[in-house]
């Protein structure tokens, strides 16, 4: 979502947007617009849009015939759903016990000092910082998922260098 938004959206962007609404509609109809499928529908919505806006939640509530409070309740209860746009880069620090024993807190501290608190995005929209409960790469502890890729055996120093490289102040 950090990509520049031109004042007049191009035609291609328009069709892509239409497609997203269509795909979301299809996911809801596959579950016969049943309220039981709310979590599946939110998964699809986040996959398509990147994060969940109030308008998106309201429209899902209307279509599944659920009170908006229930939809917001579910969307905020689960860690996986994000109500904020994500940064250009993403760091997810594993805080599983193995990573903790091998010094994951030091990595998180570095990221929090330079970018944003876990669960947030830096003010310049550059980096999202998150923590996870065991990503299962215990053999590579301490591990971080950087832009979708698992990087293992990291030190705070390597993280600092990495942040310098992508131009974080």
């Amino acid at each position, binding site marked *: 979502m950090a990509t520049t938004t031109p004042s007049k959206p191009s035609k291609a962007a328009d069709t892509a947007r239409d497609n997203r609404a269509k795909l979301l509609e299809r996911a809801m109809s596959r579950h016969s617009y049943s309220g039981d499928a709310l979590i599946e529908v939110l998964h699809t919505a986040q996959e398509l849009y990147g994060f969940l806006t109030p308008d998106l939640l309201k429209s899902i509530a209307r279509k599944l015939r659920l009170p908006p409070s229930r939809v917001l309740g579910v969307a905020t*209860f689960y860690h996986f759903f994000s109500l904020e746009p994500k940064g250009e880069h993403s760091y997810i620090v594993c805080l599983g016990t*193995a990573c903790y024993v091998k010094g994951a807190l030091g990595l998180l501290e570095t990221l929090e000092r330079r970018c944003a608190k876990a669960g947030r995005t830096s003010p310049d929209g550059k980096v999202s910082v998150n923590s996870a409960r065991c990503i299962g790469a215990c053999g590579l502890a301490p591990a971080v998922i950087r832009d979708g890729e698992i990087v293992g055996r990291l030190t705070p120093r390597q993280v600092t260098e990495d942040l310098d490289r992508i131009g974080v102040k």
Partner: protein
Amino acid sequence: MTIEELSDIQEQEQARQQKLANRIYCCTAAGCVSCGADRVRQSLHAEVKKAGLQEQVEVCGSGCMGLCSQGPLVRSAADDALYGHVSPEEAAALVSGNPVDRQLLAGKRIDTTAPFFALQHKIVLANSGVMDPEILNDYIAVGGYQALAHAVTELSPPEVIEEIKQSGLRGRGGAGYPTGLKWELVAKQSSQIKYVVCNADEGDPGAFMDRSVLEGDPHRVLEGMALAGYAVGAQQGYIYVRGEYGLAIQRLQTAIKQAERADLLGNRVLGTGFQFRVDLRIGAGAFVCGEETALIASIEGKRGQPRQRPPYPPESGLWERPTLINNVETFANIPPIIAKGGEWFASIGTAGSKGTKVFALAGKIVNTGLIEAPMGASLRTIIFDIGGGIPDGGRFKAAQTGGPSGGCIPEQFLDVPVDYESLAKIGSIMGSGGLIVMDESSDMVDVARFFMEFCMDESCGKCIPCRVGTVQMHDILARMTRGEGTPADLDMLEQLCTLLRETSLCGLGQTAPNPVLSTLRFFRHEYDAKLAASRGGAQ
């Protein structure tokens, strides 16, 4: 597919594999993938093509081979050799049958007679490293779905349950409830509609057993669920899997499609009148959803908050219907029990705990990875013989089992047999199988704080003792680790332990004090030292 066809496919596939000059298995579990297994596999494929050996040498994937610390792992079937730290450049030597080329790899060969392998007993992980989890015929070739075929044609549902009861199998999710009894409870219900649910919401930090089973042998779990459906009279199953487990989700989706297409699941299982469908439900990151009533709420599309029990799910579960909930490893044990008989299974393990247990070894241990040991093996065997001990000449301090609901086991109990009762006696629990080893560098008060922080974050907020209590306990522990604790804090901490244990609604809150209680019991001197230091600082 009918039962005759199933046996035909098994024979044909076995014969086909035997004709190959070699079959090379690349570990495709998350641990190896994260250190470059995909590139190794691609380069193996390329080398086979380059050498024109497509007809003779087959490259395929495999489930977790266990020794994650030495990934990427590759096994060559022709000479039954396992190689570690394989790089893409070594693919040519692996593909070549030439002994001279093979010599290049000698340094990478892993000794499979070492205690790490020799002391393990594999039931759940038996197929890891010998079949490709994405190919149905591979599972059939190693005898897959034969147990289901046997049950639906030759056994009545009560006979299946009897076999499970005889095996003495207990729930592998942590609590250890006898599986046969649970099945009987669900089977007894008169409702027309019942459900079978597989709990794959493995949330303990440091535990990755279930993920490995789902990634490495998804059909085995489906077969176990279908057997459960047959035994209790359910026609619909759900697998509730963590959203973080992308690869496991993908493998399960593939496996369900394959099984449906082959009539191993669906409306006519193996051409008989038995119906069983399985659907996936993807979790969204809430540890509490591992609790069965919270898991049910989450499948129903609600916030994952537990409710009061009774009624228990076998009476009133998913959509208020009788529901059987078992964990991944429990279901994975079912097909071999039906195939080989309950008596065979009961011959492994101890008096109260039968069979084997899969453990994820992590932390300060040489052989990080996935192992399976018979119940009753001692911690010393698991950590020092199988696990290879502490790296860099470190000294063992504690082993943590059971995640945030478990405890820390000190050195004096290393010879205690690992089974449900013995671990409970020393203030820990079997849990789902995460085993984290800590050496002298671990600060036990901080370990307690770490787990309390976990419970505080993951508390669902429904009941006050857990919602507020975990925050208070965490604050006290954080003060202590900063060296600002007082003796009154320690008293309050102990009181809160009792309060949470006795008044919380679900297992999360009731067991949240366990890491504190066990560190207080065995490492009280560390708490005292912190208090003394903070007094010293105040003077």
